[in-house]
């Protein structure tokens, strides 16, 4: 039995908070702290890699768990590594309680029955489970958790200028700019939101609503140009105004829906302003305007929170968290996956009937998703024959036939008779369940990245499967 379970217990201060709009996060972990957990990568690396790591040959004959624990501690003296030198399969059956103490469980090698049993324990305790494995040039990872919440998703852009419904200070600010002035210095220093606001004002005199069709958008862009007849078409701020146009209207439609449904409410203003061509004074003024409005929104929200918390007799939420919440209000994310059980139709003996469409597409396109099914077939083969296909030289040719036949049986069950998959199915037998150090290191890196995302509640984890093909160096993520 290969020792193949890693558990993480104390990775920094990971306190779990669920009393804030179902969103939990770790207050102590910021973006930069992503660099704080390199030891995790090495653990995963070591786990998947252990057969080659035996090259530390004084370790041969020692317990793998013990050696890993030792190496881990050497890597980072602050890490407390402990180990249980027991058969994981027995442990899951006889001492399931042991697993309930962990914040997260990583599985790198378990039989399908044991994996399912462990997944049930984790699921019922709301513990995220990460399964990760390599198989020749293939790598596979699957995340399973009932619920995962993220406030700080770190989107590429979180800018919301609110130009569709400017508040009074913003209108006043825009009024101060005189667009028909011949002074090109003034024109080139007019921030693009001002240009857009002015164009929108003129537009609204002739139209009932903001432009939503492509044609209306083109004529709106023309209106911007008409607004500044004397300015050369290549002025940077003018270009900024034009290109921001389409983003604004998409936002408008989404916001309109939100307003209708949520009772004339807006999300709190994030308060940031993009870089733009403008002189420092007008830029800083504009920036201060947005900042103040965001502060005001935040204060409103804080007042609500105070009332809510006292009504519900809950602990007051830290002001710093409200700040972060407001900045990310448009990007909050709640994720959840299906349980592993649902993929096995309650028993691993049942086959892929629920994957009809996925199998059909994968076979048709010959894409990487097919490898998921092929790997599942390999597990099935192991359950039937007591070993993975292609692992014994003498049986290689007969395994090849038997494995393809087994895969074909599965496909026939879902009604697929002809598919472009043979090279990928054969590849599994040729791989012989071997672990390549490079592929193991890659999956170790991928899995630790996702583990850190799950533990810190920062950034978005993959939803929820990932396959890497080391032959073509391509990868695919897909939802199970």
């Amino acid at each position: 039995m290969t020792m193949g379970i890693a558990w993480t217990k104390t990775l920094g201060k990971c306190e779990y908070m669920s009393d804030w709009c179902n969103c939990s996060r770790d207050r102590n972990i910021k973006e930069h702290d992503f660099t704080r957990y390199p030891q995790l990568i090495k653990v995963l690396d070591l786990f998947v890699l252990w057969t080659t790591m035996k090259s530390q040959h004084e370790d041969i004959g020692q317990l793998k768990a013990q050696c890993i624990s030792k190496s881990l501690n050497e890597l980072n003296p602050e890490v407390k590594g402990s180990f249980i030198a027991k058969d994981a399969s027995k442990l899951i059956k006889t001492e399931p309680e042991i697993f309930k103490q962990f914040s997260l469980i990583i599985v790198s090698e378990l039989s399908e029955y044991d994996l399912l049993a462990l997944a049930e324990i984790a699921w019922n305790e709301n513990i995220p489970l990460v399964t990760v494995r390599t198989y020749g040039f293939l790598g596979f990872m699957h995340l399973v958790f009932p619920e995962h919440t993220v406030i700080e998703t770190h989107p590429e852009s979180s800018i919301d200028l609110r130009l569709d419904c400017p508040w009074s200070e913003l209108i006043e600010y825009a009024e101060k700019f005189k667009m028909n002035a011949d002074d090109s210095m003034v024109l080139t220093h007019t921030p693009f939101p001002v240009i857009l606001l002015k164009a929108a004002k003129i537009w609204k005199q002739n139209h009932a609503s903001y432009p939503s069709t492509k044609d209306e958008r083109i004529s709106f862009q023309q209106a911007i140009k008409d607004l500044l007849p004397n300015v050369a078409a290549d002025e940077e701020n003018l270009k900024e105004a034009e290109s921001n146009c389409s983003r604004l209207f998409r936002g408008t439609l989404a916001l309109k829906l939100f307003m209708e449904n949520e009772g004339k409410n807006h999300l709190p203003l994030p308060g940031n302003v993009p870089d733009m061509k403008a002189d420092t004074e007008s830029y800083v003024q504009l920036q201060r305007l947005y900042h103040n409005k965001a502060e005001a929104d935040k204060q409103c929200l804080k007042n609500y929170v105070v009332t809510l918390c006292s009504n519900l007799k809950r602990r007051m939420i830290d002001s710093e968290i409200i700040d972060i919440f407001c900045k990310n209000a448009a990007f909050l994310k709640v994720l959840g996956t299906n349980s592993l059980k649902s993929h096995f139709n309650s028993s691993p003996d049942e086959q892929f009937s629920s994957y009809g469409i996925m199998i059909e597409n994968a076979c048709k396109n010959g894409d990487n998703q097919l490898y998921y099914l092929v790997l599942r077939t390999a597990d099935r083969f192991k359950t039937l024959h007591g070993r993975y296909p292609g692992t014994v030289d003498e049986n290689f040719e007969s395994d090849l036939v038997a494995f393809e036949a087994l895969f074909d049986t599965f496909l026939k069950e879902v009604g697929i008779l002809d598919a472009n998959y043979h090279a990928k199915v054969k590849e599994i037998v040729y791989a012989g369940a071997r672990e390549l150090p490079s592929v193991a290191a890659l999956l170790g890196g991928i899995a630790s990245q996702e583990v850190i995302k799950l533990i810190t509640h920062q950034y978005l984890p993959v939803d929820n499967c990932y396959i890497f093909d080391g032959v073509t160096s391509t990868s695919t993520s897909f939802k199970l």
Partner: protein
Amino acid sequence: MEVDWPDRWQNVHHYLKRAAPFSVEGFQPGSEVIEYLHECSICIIGAGGLGCELIKNLAMTGFKDIHIIDMDTIDVSNLNRQFLFRQKDVGRSKAEVAAEFIMSRVPGCKVTPYFGKIQDKDEEYYSQFTLIICGLDSVEARRWMNAMIIGMYDEEDPSTLKPLIDGGTEGFKGQSRVILPRMTACYECSLEMQTKPKTFPMCTIANTPRLPEHCIQFASQVQWPEEFKDKKLDGDDPEHIQWCLRKAKERADQYGIRGITYSLTQGVVKNIIPAIASTNAIIAASCANEAYKLVTGCAGSMQNYMMYVGDAGIYTYTFALERKEECPVCGSALLQFEMDKNSLLQDLIDLLLEKNEVQLKRPSLRTSSKSLYMQAPPQLEQMTRKNLEMKLQDLFTSNEEINVTDMNLPISLRLHVKLK
């Protein structure tokens, strides 16, 4: 001492025992390729975040003759991700410590460190390797290495073909690629894809600021935490940015640096991209995987560029980057401009510096008969400096061939300027 105990390399040998569905055409399985894996010589450039991962991966894969080059010494800030280094190693050469570590842990693996610059070594040195892997954070060093392996390649002599595998990371983003001289796109072909670097080493920020960005980072990363111990710097708070702007300006004045603006201050404060250990692990693993396939042929190489983004889910995109016909390194580079005959030589140089696809730093120009402007040596620079203020029509004829070189880059460009 027998270092190869039974089954030591069974995993990496497995794919070398028989031809598999994805082996390259003509792949010959058996003992010869197995020996080749263990005997071939690999050069790793860079012993930092990527380099540490690379050397570990290659040693584990069974490469037994590894050379590693790095000019840097170990800093405390490296320890969190450059896992071959320990506190006691601070101040020592990265290449040397990495080599010692691997040799102490992986019996039978010989690692030869070189503590110095890649530019110290010549063609003869680089021709001893089967392939070269770069794990660098410097565009200049990559350009140099790329030009070196392309210059070395003689189409008549296959032994001069040195594949280059290049890895790079920035925060959650990364890329790995395989460069085969004159067969795939080279580093220079895709120079336009480079974004300008926005992060700087702490020692530069603290001791040798050159750019306005350096002064701003000093204000935001050193002075702010000193002044406001409990307050976090908020990139969206104008008061905070104003404070950094003022401090950065003071520092810039002290060093005679110009160009600090409000928007630059904000851009720099908000755009700090940390090195992420997992991204390094992923990219280095991909590079090592390509090395294993290239050396053995047990599977084909990636086609030929993989980009990776890991902040929202996991995304990779692998595609065949096309060669550029006019590439100054692997193609027949010819730049063609059209300029007013009364423009000055300085205008031409300014125009050259703006060209993103060649990214020159200090260009020198000469025609077949005379030097137009030479950056070095100093005497020549002084002699040609007056030409900068001369009109183009007084210096060369329309479309006369001009040779452009750059003292920091191993490239030379042909330039035709049509005077009108």
